[in-house]
């Protein structure tokens, strides 16, 4: 051994804890209890220990991060699809801008409405705060693609476009033109299978398209978006609607849209309408109408469950991976943990170290997971026409889930710490 072992040390470097040798008065009995560590030290020291331990084994750290990242991306995609599908499911109703709607109480979803008598619209006018009430007709008809001639069902919305009761984005400048017979406005966000209508319109102006058994003229564009029930939408006047859907009686309507007088309180008006109208109509504000539709897709279809299940699976897989990593980390360092216990570290401290490791993994996996998911939203959203967008509240809630997932894995792995018995150290 070549190292020089110092045989003497200068007195000054002596640490003063040998009063019986230095001649100082001996402290009475046991030394005073040390103060409890401050909150910062109690949290930061285990965190640092955990980080140093994780950092020491790069491959294990990388696979743990990959596990968290995987769970993170999976959950983001599931939640993204879920909300995109629900958003698009309600696209048509969200685009219908009126104050209050009347609907048949048995209507569960807008693409298969139960009809209600048109007279309810007139009855609603009895209330002084109602400015106007118009019937809305919904139906599907086949659209022939003006480019390649293929046929595809499209959603038709017919109502008195002049009345100003209901608005769609982009409708206002078309109101005059839509008064002409056999005209319609096309939803520019319809799927491309209907043909490149916006481009054709820009190139040649209004043009003829076969809708049902009739030649109709596309005169302009509105913006709605595809939904579960419909890949594309067209809006027209109620008169033109009945020309396309000949079997439809004008007295049977699918919805009634109501516009209130300026200054009227919508909530109050809803209450009053409920009191006035017979029980064969349901009175809903516009947000409630959208919520009703969304509720159908969430509860009456397995869609909500499928995505919740997918997210849960992602979280469970992630948790198992993190647990495995933490567990084997503890198992392979049992001697070291036992040593720490032997030299006076408490179980609580070591538990905090394991939890810290879990939380470090949560953060290190979440950040790239967020970036990758944002990119994927963009790519997948463009490919599927689904409105996939990263928003802060979803990012926060996914972080919450990943955090919980890692914390649970940490709590499970912590049980392994009990196997570190300091008495086995000698």
């Amino acid at each position, binding site marked *: *051994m070549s*190292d*020089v*072992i*110092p*045989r003497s*040390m200068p007195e000054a*470097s*002596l*640490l003063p*804890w*040998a*009063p*019986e*040798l*230095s001649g100082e008065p*001996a402290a009475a*009995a*046991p*030394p005073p*209890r*040390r*103060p*409890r*560590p*401050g909150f910062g*030290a109690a949290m930061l*020291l285990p965190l640092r220990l955990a980080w*140093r*331990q994780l*950092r*020491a*084994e790069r491959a294990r750290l990388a696979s743990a991060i990959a596990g968290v990242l995987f769970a993170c991306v999976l959950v983001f995609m599931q939640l993204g699809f879920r909300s995109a599908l629900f958003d698009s499911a309600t696209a048509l109703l969200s685009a219908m801008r009126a104050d209050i709607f009347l609907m048949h109480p048995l209507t569960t979803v807008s693409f298969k409405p139960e009809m209600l008598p048109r007279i309810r619209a007139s009855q609603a006018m009895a209330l002084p705060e109602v400015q106007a009430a118009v019937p809305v007709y919904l139906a599907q008809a086949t659209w022939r693609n003006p480019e390649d001639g293929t046929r595809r069902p499209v959603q038709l919305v017919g109502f008195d476009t002049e009345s100003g009761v209901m608005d769609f984005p982009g409708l206002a400048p078309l109101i005059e033109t839509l008064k002409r017979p056999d005209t319609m406005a096309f939803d520019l966000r319809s799927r491309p299978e209907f043909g490149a209508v916006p481009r054709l319109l820009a190139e040649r102006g209004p043009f003829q398209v076969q809708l049902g058994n009739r030649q109709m003229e596309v005169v302009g564009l509105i913006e709605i978006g595809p939904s579960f029930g419909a890949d594309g939408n067209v809006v027209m006047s109620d008169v033109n609607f009945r020309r396309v859907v000949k079997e439809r009686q004008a007295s049977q309507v699918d919805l009634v849209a109501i516009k209130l007088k300026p200054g009227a309180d919508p909530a109050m008006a809803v209450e009053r309408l409920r009191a006035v109208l017979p029980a064969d109509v349901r009175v809903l504000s516009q947000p409630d109408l959208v919520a009703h539709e969304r509720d159908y897709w969430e509860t009456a279809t397995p869609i909500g469950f499928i995505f919740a299940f997918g997210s849960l699976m992602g979280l469970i897989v992630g948790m198992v991976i993190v647990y495995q990593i933490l567990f084997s980390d503890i198992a392979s*360092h049992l*001697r*070291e943990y036992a*040593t*720490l*216990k*032997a*030299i*006076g*570290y*408490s*179980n609580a401290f070591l538990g905090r170290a394991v939890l810290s490791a879990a939380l470090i993994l949560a953060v290190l996996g979440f950040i790239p997971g967020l970036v990758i998911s944002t990119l994927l939203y963009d790519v997948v959203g463009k490919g599927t026409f689904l409105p996939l967008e990263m928003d802060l509240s979803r990012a926060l809630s996914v972080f919450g889930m990943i955090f919980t997932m890692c914390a649970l894995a940490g709590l499970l792995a912590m049980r392994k710490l009990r196997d570190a018995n*300091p*008495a086995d*150290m*000698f």
Partner: protein
Amino acid sequence: MQSPIQLRGVTYAYGTGDLARPVLRDVDLTVAPGEVVLLTGPSGSGKTTLLTLIGALRALQQGSATVLGQQLAGATERQRTAIRRRIGFIFQQHNLLGFLTARQNVAMALELDPATTERERLARASEMLAAVGLAEKGESRPDQLSGGQRQRVAVARALAGQPGLILADEPTAALDRQSGGDVVRLLRDLARRRGVPILMVTHDPRILDIADRIIAMEDGRILPANEANSASAA
């Protein structure tokens, strides 16, 4: 001056009920302040068990043990953890944390003291490493050190926390003669200078000369002093 270790009638058995196997029988032991005591005896005589009881690593079953002023009989887990912080342990293996440098390993013994700052801890760790002749090795990881160097880091760690007592179980077992002897003498010198008593289990006849007193155990009992000396001479 109070004795750092005072055992009265300590009896210990592994297992319970019919399976109980007594390992320690009615052990009395007193270690004086600053005293260096070696514990020898045949394999299975209960030396390690005795050391783990004194080190509060196991709960006492019978008898009384006062270590650094704390009665261990009936002590809670929390009290035992607290007393362990005031004892320097040196194990057969160095038991350093593989992912920490030598200096960080020594500083780990100081992080238990909330009154210290990170700066002080690292400074003290460096000081202790210098005292064991490893001033240059502070940034090395345990796997970059020789066995003797590792055990010296362990000595530095045990002493860094200003312990009131050092407990060591065959600290030379994993070392060759030369480095084993060096480490033990270093430990003795550093502890002496600080007045810290040492209780060390050893089989190594070459280091018996460092002791103030040698105690021999056999079959769970401490032999009377004259037999102890003849046992160690054998």
